């Protein structure tokens, strides 16, 4: 139940960001620092989420089939594969490695 509450708060705040751009005077957001932080934070969060999903397990680190998925995704992206293909490459590699016995 409490997950629902945080989920709905996240939805409300997401809309708040979006609508703020339409109402806040341009001057207010024009400070180059604001857009720079929005940009660096996007990069930082996505990098962090990638790492967490690849090697973190609870409060420790683990090297398992997910590392294979990371490598496969990187190769697919280098080959300019579309998003869905990258995701399938990641899933397929992790599944295959597990099938072969690597956790």
């Amino acid at each position, binding site marked *: 139940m409490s*997950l629902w509450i945080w989920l709905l708060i996240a939805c409300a705040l997401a809309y708040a960001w979006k609508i703020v751009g339409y109402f806040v005077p341009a001057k207010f957001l024009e400070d180059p620092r604001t857009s720079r932080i929005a940009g660096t934070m996007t990069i930082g*969060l996505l990098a962090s989420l990638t790492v967490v999903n690849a090697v973190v397990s609870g409060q420790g680190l683990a090297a398992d089939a997910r590392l294979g998925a990371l490598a496969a995704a990187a190769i697919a992206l280098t080959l300019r594969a579309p998003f869905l293909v990258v995701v399938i490459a990641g899933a397929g590699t992790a599944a295959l490695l597990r099938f072969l016995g690597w956790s």
Partner: protein
Amino acid sequence: MKLLASPAVKVGLSISIATGLYGISFGALAVTSGLNFWQAMALSLLLFSGGSQFAFIGVVAGGGSGIAAMSAATLLGMRNGIYGMQLNALLRPTGWRKYIGAQLTIDESTATSTGQTDPAEQRRGFWTAGIGVYVLWNLFTAVGALAGSGLGDPKQWGLDGAAVAAFLALLWPRLKGREPIAIAAVCAVATVGAVPFVPPGVPILVAAVVAALVGWFSHGRRDEGLEPDVEPYTHHAGHHQDAAGTHPGAQRREGTEPEAGT
């Protein structure tokens, strides 16, 4: 028929199909992360921003709390505020269009709109991509969520690997140049370093703080990292023109000039 002759509508439709399709992976991952069908749908219907939605379920899947998931999703949504400001200057929506348009303000609609130069085309691009992605993204989220819940053990199908790949794919287009790569590396290290010391989900917020500090103190391009997830115009233009055209930041000055004049 006449509408289909518009280049912005064509690009908007193709980007809607490409983006909408990967709603399948969001839906499937959401239910295997522990969300139920309606929670997955609520994120797609109400939150409607791919990166933030994946962040929310990514934190939940890692055992993080609801508040950590909400925080990560919210911080990642900040860039939509910047997009909103650019689109407001560009399209000048009025009345209810502002409120509906705000919900449709995402990477894809912003990129499709700002990639056009004619104001009517910019408007068509925004609404085509915005509505198109919204409809298909939600449709395919439902398909993915229904399919995902029937899969049994998600690990057997490598769905945790799919999440890793999804985040890397969202990050990848933003890693143009040395600085964004350095920011990503520093934040990755900060995350790993924080893992043993703080509860699950919080290392992601530590990385967000590090990234914000880098943004505050460094003096790189002001629109670093605001390249949208997608490059709708790669097939239509040369690289240089493309880089300038799809950049939401690139047209910002042009878009806000009339404002300064009045």
